[in-house]
């Protein structure tokens, strides 16, 4: 099993979720994060003093997937999250050793 972590642009969430659901992903976690990267933030002015906001709001998705699905999930993520503008995000794949469903105690692919 693999554990996929991805940063995407917030307004893409619904589209990505639908695409992933379509290919069989049945769960994920979404976190509001601040992203730092090549995409520059914006400048704010407060009472005459300018300052740079270096962080850009992003959403972070985490998805535990079976080995069989990894490639498809990464591909789907990349395609739907893409806008071709800087700051579209990243997809990271980590190895996932074990997964458990709290409600039933099921483990492995059954837990996903």
């Amino acid at each position, binding site marked *: 099993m693999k554990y996929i972590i991805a940063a995407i642009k*917030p*307004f893409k969430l619904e589209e990505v979720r639908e695409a992933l659901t379509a290919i069989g992903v049945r769960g994920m976690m979404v976190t*509001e994060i601040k992203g730092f990267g090549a995409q520059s933030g*914006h*400048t*704010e*002015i*407060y009472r005459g003093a*300018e300052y740079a906001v270096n962080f850009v*709001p992003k959403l972070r998705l985490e998805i535990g997937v079976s080995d069989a699905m990894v490639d498809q999930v990464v591909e789907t993520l990349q395609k739907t999250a893409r806008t071709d503008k800087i700051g579209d995000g990243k997809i990271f794949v980590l190895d996932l050793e074990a997964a458990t469903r709290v409600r039933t105690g099921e483990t492995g692919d059954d837990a996903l």
Partner: protein
Amino acid sequence: MQLKKILPLAALAVALPALGMAQEAEAVADAAPDVLEAVAALNTEMVFIMNSLLFLIGGFLVFFMAAGFCMLETGLVRSKNATMQATKNVALFSLAGIAYFIVGFNLMYPGDWVIEGWLGGISPTVLEPVGVELADVDDVEYASVGSDFIFQLMFCAAVASIVSGAVAERIKLWPFLAFVIILTGIIYPIQASWSWGEGFLDEMGFSDFAGSSIVHAAGGWAALAGVLVLGARYGKYGKDGKINVMPGSNLPLATLGMFILWLGWFGFNGGSQLAMGTISDVADVSRIFANTNTAASGGAVAALILSTILYKKPDLTMVLNGALAGLVSITAEPLTPSLGAATLIGAVGGVIVVFTVPLLDKFKIDDVVGAIPVHLFAGLWGTMAVPLTNSDASFGTQFVGMAIIGAFMFVASLVVWLILKAVMGIRISDEDQVTGLDKTEMGMEAYPEFGNS
């Protein structure tokens, strides 16, 4: 001032009992003309003071509606546009205040008309001099110019506040403010002069006590024109008729705004009696207070019940809009209805809101805060409801007045919006709308520490 005139009489009065009967009679005879004059003057003074006081109290209450509109609108936009919405509300009120004294007030209440009954005078407002005396007062049977001005100004500013809610979250700041200046300096005052400045609509018998049409529908028409020219917020309407809901970010704040507006409406309608210096006037103001309150109740309760029936769950934003629609509905005639009638008139307003808010969405007319249902639709209803309880009004005249006001407000606003669109551009780019106006236009977030979407 009056005191000094009477005090010698009082001294005389105190001295009199010491004198014999004859001298007394003589002294009285001497004093009598002064007494008569003093009583009359005292009465005149009392009426003038009470009328002016009504305007001053009404003035600060209606002033506070600016805060009410601001909180309502700021609570109903998404947090990424909240700073902008607050900025627009403060700026529009400030600009209205200036535009109205420079041209608006005398356009609206012309001493000399440029075109009799149609187009008022063009000159800045001049207040009565400092320490003005009875003899020099502009209209001694009415009230001080300053109190009248401050009261009327607040109505004018309210028209602009109505517009700002409808066009929120995608209009550029400066073109919006340009529109506000023209609206409050020229369009509204000209229209209002027709009824309240004793112009041709007044002549015709059109009856709109505190402005269901003249203020609220007028603002609604200007807002509708703006919304049509401007288009919906980016992403609001999906391809297949799907409506993307964009929930307000701070409903407690919106609720506060509604309460402040309700409070201000006591001044709005009560002050429109224009007099409080006699028993009948103060009793009428009291009637108006009671009817205004119960109409708001009716609107809120109707919206609460109806939204629950239609959507299974009650909708707070509909209840807020419902109360306001109740208030708008009673504004054309808050005096003549009984409490029961006023409640029903308000309730119809609440019903109108619940049905027309989704209706506008069907036509892809994107009114962020419900300004058009509340102020325009309920305003029209209120105007047409006048003859139900006021026998001096007729449905025909009401309809004609309402139509003329509507046509003028809509067309004039449309022209101004189209010119502004052509000249400066009025719409924020889709991308900036996604990011939020607070970041792109203001560089200042309303709640920088909470959430970060």
